[in-house]
């Protein structure tokens, strides 16, 4: 069962959405403040964080940045702040969805399902004798050697695995993992891939294939 962290300070709306997501057989934790959401993020792993932006003790944008720094959780904003500047900020942070209020229930559920389906990767992925634990951000080789991944490299790996067998463009990796409020060059992606190959002991590039002029492709399969 997928686990959703819902951050919404409006009592009535939060209750309605929680009930609806539970009806959709999702496990939901409803936080009403940034502080409560930060505790939930620190204590648990979430498959999706649905965030309001204007919260009593801070901004959902700040919370999203914190979540992006510390975990692989995809983010969906659900807010009445719908100006160009707000939407731009949301996408710059690297949000997977930006749903302006008011919205239809059907649309909300569809978008939640879409993000969950796109980002859905098993916590443990086995590939050519290696075991990749995306929750613990670690890789264990066939010889039992264990290496740990950086959060950002973990996001890149998760994106490649969830997109397989498609090739993922470097610019898509930059947008989805770094977000548009940072200004890394495509070189940053290449460096992350080098670190991932080292951690995976993928000397012959059989797990992560480089596609010249485009990007990278995960070829490890998954289980």
């Amino acid at each position: 069962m997928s686990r959703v962290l819902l951050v919404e300070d409006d009592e009535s709306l939060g209750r309605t959405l929680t009930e609806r997501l539970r009806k959709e057989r999702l496990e939901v934790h409803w936080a009403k403040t940034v502080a409560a959401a930060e505790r939930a993020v620190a204590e648990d792993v979430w498959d999706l964080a649905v965030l309001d932006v204007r919260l009593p003790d801070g901004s959902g944008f700040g919370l999203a940045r914190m979540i992006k720094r510390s975990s692989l959780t995809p983010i969906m904003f659900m807010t009445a702040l719908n100006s160009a500047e707000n939407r731009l900020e949301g996408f710059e942070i690297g949000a997977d969805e930006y749903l302006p209020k008011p919205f239809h229930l059907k649309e909300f559920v569809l978008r939640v399902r879409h993000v969950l389906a796109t980002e859905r990767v098993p916590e443990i992925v086995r590939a050519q004798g290696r075991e990749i634990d995306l929750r613990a951000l670690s890789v264990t080789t066939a010889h039992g050697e264990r290496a740990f991944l950086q959060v950002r490299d973990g996001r890149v790996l998760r994106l490649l695995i969830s997109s397989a067998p498609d090739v993922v463009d470097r610019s898509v990796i930059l947008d989805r993992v770094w977000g548009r409020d940072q200004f890394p060059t495509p070189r940053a992606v290449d460096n992350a891939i080098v670190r991932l190959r080292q951690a995976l002991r993928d000397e012959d590039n059989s797990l992560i294939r480089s596609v010249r002029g485009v990007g990278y492709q995960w070829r490890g399969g998954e289980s």
Partner: protein
Amino acid sequence: MTPAARRHRLHYTVATAWLVATVSLASWWLAIGLSLPERMHRMFVWEGAAFIGLLVAGGVAIVRAIRREHLRRQALETFFMSFTHDLKTSLASVGLQAENLREDWPAATDRAPLDRLLHDLVRLQIQLENSLFVAQPDGRLLREPIATGPAIARLAEDWPELIVNIRGSATVVADARAFDAVVRNVLQNAVVHGGAQCVDVTVEPAASGDRVRLTLADDGRGIEPEIFAGLGQPFGRGSRTSGTGVGLFVCSQLTTRMDGVLRFLRGGSAGRGLTVVLELPGAR
């Protein structure tokens, strides 16, 4: 920087430049006056001092007025944003609860009051969005790729009883929020003021090649000839129903700001109703 902020900075710059230029001119005039014979000199001192005093007072008053206006505008915007934020959250909450109720309602025939409630909520949402666009005529718009077919199909769900036939699809470059507002206003207009049952949407490349033409033809009552020419004008009422005309005015403004063209043609689907032609830049 937003257009409003740019305009505000321009006002400040012009006011300051005016103040500096006039005070230095007056000072120069006074300096020349001091070098003149005694009688002339006294006259120049008094006249010059009064002149400089008036100029400084005028300049300071102008700068203060600009600043006060800026602060007032900021306070109004903050209030308006906060007010609409709360209103949108409440609307979302009421709408979702009504949709929940509607889904769980046992018999479809008894759902009419809920359908009416949802209808009115959509109307309120559109009015609120229109008022926000009117209040911020120079708010920033983004240029985003929008797949027109799926976007119109999603927006048409606001009117479940309306049949919307979409033929063709193309991606346009426009602001997603503004595009939604234009299409929702056109559909709302067709249903509420035209009494339309069906809207035929055709998406095709425009004659110029780099644009996409969306034609929305409804089978409603159409528009009376005497007010047809005023469609899209500020608060030009497009029917004898209770509309204010603000919806099509907002559509017209937004389309122009998105480098698009909005036209109205008499006669819609099956030779009746209204046809709205929307041309927007296409995505490469």
